[in-house]
């Protein structure tokens, strides 16, 4: 009777597995129980009962009794596959990133039906049976059905780990709520570019609308996946800006996200916050860099203290007491080891076209991966994103800030500051001078220049010394970093110049900005419409650690009155003038971004 028990067990495992299929549409509470039972009991049954039994059974019949059974052999092989795929799913899982996981999933799913068929067949010993067509069908189903799609084909890859279909506004805890205990960090974030990614960022609003006009409304999701995750997960179709009666409040110059703090006071947590809020990053559970916004969020499974969600003053106050009295669970809820790794940032700082081409618009993480900064073997040389972008700077040097991240919290040696200094000193600088200073200091650590005159040529070397990625990176089709050169002779007469701004603010044609230029299929520059990128026209960015030499001819070099005074400046501008011009049409209050001097060198020859 032993084999009868085995059959019952297999059938039970099959049934519990089948119930998880989406056609049964099981309620989540039941689903997770059925799933857990299925997995745990299957592991136990397979390890302690099924595999030993099949071994004994095979030994007994095939070796001792020398019985020949095609269905038996097939059954054995199938069982092997299903057990193996089950264990793979259990230990490594079908995380979406690897093909084996996906294949295992389908083997486990469809294989089980075939297994059941052969289980019946194996019992009817006398029927002569040709299994070939069935194997063929199984193979065809296995090969054709699972679409091994590359995740970057999608507009956004945000996954909601908690299994819900969508979030509601209340699930997105307002960042202003964090202010009461994490005031300093909040203030840093409140004027940072992560906060002002959406409705308060004129460049973004213009670009999202333009993308929608060009590609259809659905395409907004491509932008919103990283810029406006709260709206994507609450199933909103577009990003919106605030209105105050008939006017748009001027968020460009508002310090400390005052409107956000006020809104929490007047509306509780019912109004959705846009941009990358505290919980966006601090409730990410998984990331990969396989596609746009490819991160997993889990907002609802937070362990919340009593009254944590309350809008009433008394209850909020109480909840803060509850947290502070024993904050271990709170810490665990919002912090993960993952957050220190560069791959964490990759889900948004690698950006792909949402088609099969896998062409990358932004590849900051991939650049870092190949750079000398990525050196896990030598921890002294290994520098991750946060080592530069979340470390305090003073007097142009990284000087880790000693202090507390929580009011009355533990004093830490290196507070990870939330200025998110990158290159955009401009928009955050409109709100806070401190932010502009931090970013400009960081920018100035990135490059070094040298100059020489040889054989009638000016040779200017630019070395990317400080950035763990290309210079510039990010949306490098919209970044300007260029050399401004002036050569004067003995009489202070300008004999050569390059890289000046024209009267209309655009760069002169002779300037050689370090940037990449996207082109469409006819190699025509795409301009504002960067999603139309088909061919790369040029890429003059400087990879991490590399030195680029630019050579300029001076006419009649020998006839010049020496000594020649050479002034070379390495300039940076966050947006070209023609981009700002377009944005100013919609946001006339937007000032022009200034040119930032990164390095200057003067030499006489």
């Amino acid at each position, binding site marked *: 009777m032993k084999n009868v028990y085995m059959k019952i067990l297999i059938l039970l495992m099959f*049934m519990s597995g089948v119930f998880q299929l989406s056609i049964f*549409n099981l309620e989540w509470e039941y689903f997770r129980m059925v799933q857990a039972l299925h997995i745990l009991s299957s592991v136990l049954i397979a390890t302690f009962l099924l595999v030993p039994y099949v071994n004994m059974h095979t030994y007994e019949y095939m070796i001792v009794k020398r019985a020949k059974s095609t269905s038996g052999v097939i059954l054995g092989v199938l069982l092997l596959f299903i057990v193996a795929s089950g264990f793979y799913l259990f230990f490594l899982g079908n995380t979406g990133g690897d093909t084996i996981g996906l294949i295992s999933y389908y083997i486990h799913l469809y294989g089980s039906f075939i297994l059941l068929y052969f289980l019946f067949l194996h019992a009817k010993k006398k029927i002569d049976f040709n299994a070939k067509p069935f194997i063929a069908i199984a193979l065809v189903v296995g090969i054709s059905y699972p679409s091994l799609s590359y995740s970057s084909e999608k507009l956004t890859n945000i996954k909601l780990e908690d299994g819900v279909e969508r979030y509601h506004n209340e699930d997105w805890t307002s960042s202003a709520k964090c202010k009461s205990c994490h005031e300093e960090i909040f203030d840093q974030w409140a004027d940072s570019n992560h906060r002002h990614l959406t409705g308060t960022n004129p460049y973004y609003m213009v670009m999202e609308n333009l993308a929608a006009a060009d590609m259809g409304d659905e395409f907004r999701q491509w932008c919103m996946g990283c810029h406006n995750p709260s709206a994507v997960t609450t199933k909103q179709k577009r990003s919106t800006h605030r*209105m105050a009666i*008939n006017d748009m409040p001027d968020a460009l110059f508002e310090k400390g996200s005052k409107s956000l703090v006020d809104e929490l006071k007047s509306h509780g947590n019912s*109004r959705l916050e846009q941009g990358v809020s505290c919980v966006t990053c601090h409730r990410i559970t998984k990331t990969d860099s396989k596609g746009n916004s490819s991160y997993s969020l889990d907002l609802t499974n937070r362990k919340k203290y009593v009254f944590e969600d309350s809008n009433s003053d008394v209850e909020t106050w109480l909840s803060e007491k509850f947290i502070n009295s024993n904050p271990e669970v709170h810490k665990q809820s919002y912090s993960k080891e993952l957050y220190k790794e560069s791959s964490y940032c990759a889900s948004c700082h690698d950006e792909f076209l949402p088609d099969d081409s896998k062409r990358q618009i932004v590849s900051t993480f991939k650049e870092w991966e190949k750079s000398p900064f990525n050196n896990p073997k030598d921890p002294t040389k290994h520098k991750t994103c946060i080592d530069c972008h979340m470390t305090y700077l003073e007097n142009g040097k990284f000087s880790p800030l000693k202090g507390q991240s929580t009011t009355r919290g533990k004093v830490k040696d290196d507070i990870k500051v939330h200025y998110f200094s990158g290159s955009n000193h401009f928009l955050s600088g409109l709100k806070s001078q401190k932010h502009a200073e931090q970013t400009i200091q960081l920018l100035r650590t990135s490059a070094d220049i040298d100059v020489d005159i040889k054989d009638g040529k000016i040779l200017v070397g630019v070395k990317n010394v400080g950035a763990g990625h290309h210079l510039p990176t990010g949306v490098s089709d919209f970044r300007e970093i260029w050399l401004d050169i002036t050569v004067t002779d003995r009489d202070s007469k300008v004999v050569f110049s390059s890289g000046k701004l024209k009267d209309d603010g655009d760069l002169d044609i002779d300037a050689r900005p370090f940037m990449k230029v996207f082109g469409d299929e006819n190699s025509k520059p795409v301009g504002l419409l960067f999603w139309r990128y088909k061919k790369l026209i040029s890429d003059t960015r400087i990879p991490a650690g590399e030195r680029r030499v630019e050579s300029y001819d001076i006419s009649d070099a020998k006839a010049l009155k020496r000594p020649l005074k050479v002034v070379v400046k390495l300039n940076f501008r966050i947006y070209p003038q023609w981009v700002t011009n377009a944005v100013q049409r919609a946001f*006339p209050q937007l000032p022009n971004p200034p040119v930032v001097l990164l390095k200057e060198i003067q030499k006489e020859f």
Partner: protein
Amino acid sequence: MKFFVYVFIFIILLVTTVAFLLPTKEKRQFSDDGLRTAALSRNMSSTPATYEELLNLVDTPQNRMSKEKIDLGRDLYHEKMLSKDNDISCATCHVLSKDLKDKNIYLKALTSKTNDKTDCVVCHLSDQSATDRFETSVGHGGAKNPFHLNTLTTLNAALAKYQTWDGSVKTVEEQVGLSIQNPTQMNLSKEEVVKRLLLDATYVKKFELSFDKVSFENVQKAIGAYLKTLITRSDYDRFLDGDNNAINTKAKKGLSHFLNFGCKGCHTGVTVGGQSIQKFPLRDYNSIVDVTNSFNEEDKGREVSDFDFNAKMYHPFPFENKGGFMGKDGERLFRVPMLRNVTKTSPYFHNGAVAKLREAVFLMGKHQLGMHLTYQQTDEIVEFLKSLEGDVVDYKVVNKGAL
């Protein structure tokens, strides 16, 4: 063999017990076809897809539709001459581009060197929503609406039985005349309109094609004819026309809520509203005992979470009574707003006090139906409302870029 029979019986028993143990899911009220039949039988219908069908619906003996007339109407709709300071056209507030087919309108506005479009219009012109998104309309010399009423969309307006917030106007032609003369709107007298148009030879010629002469009445008729072609078609219409896949399951659920809960009682007809005048709020919780639902004046908030114990003041609306408008005859009677394109016409209610659609749906449920809608129900109804969003149908009657 017997064994397998037992196992099968066991499995069937297992499945049935599990089925009994599972929570009873909400029963689907309608099949797709049933839903359509129900909607159609309750007076809801799709908008015309062809010009011939449109004519059946909007052509009247008083104002016969013709290609020339529509063309003229479109020019007049975008004509700033019709305002006292020559700075406002119908399209200033009822934001709409002249060439609805122009997909590059936004890029052009951003990049062209000689473009007078700035501010809101740059982005919102491509919305084609035929309304500004302001809380209150702004007219001649920056004058705001005295009652803080916001601009209604002109899209589909011609299909409504009543115009304006209180429903005091019956036809779009009548409203065109009122808007041109209203001191807080375009502020131009009838005589001045005719005088200005007579000075323009092109207009005189165009009027001759459709009318006997240039007159204010004919201006109303021409613009009216153009407005009658501003009809949108959406996924919802395609669903009503027989395409079961035009709207998603959630929107279908939303539609069935819409029918079941009673929303359709007022928001009905081809425009999903605009066919009757009704009281709002129907359930005036404030007038009974003002304890649970009154509006907290101190916080100046406008939504559900701000409702607090407040026995001090009486509030006519479940939001701030900005502008003090009390509807028709001061009885809080309003024309039922049209829900077509409602996703493009925020902020909501007559004084724009509610910014978000979900809030508006919740308030309507609470005060008109006496229901506390759940998150899920609200989501589904909003999903249905999204399916009402559509583009203006191209009836292929208007010449491109005339004048």
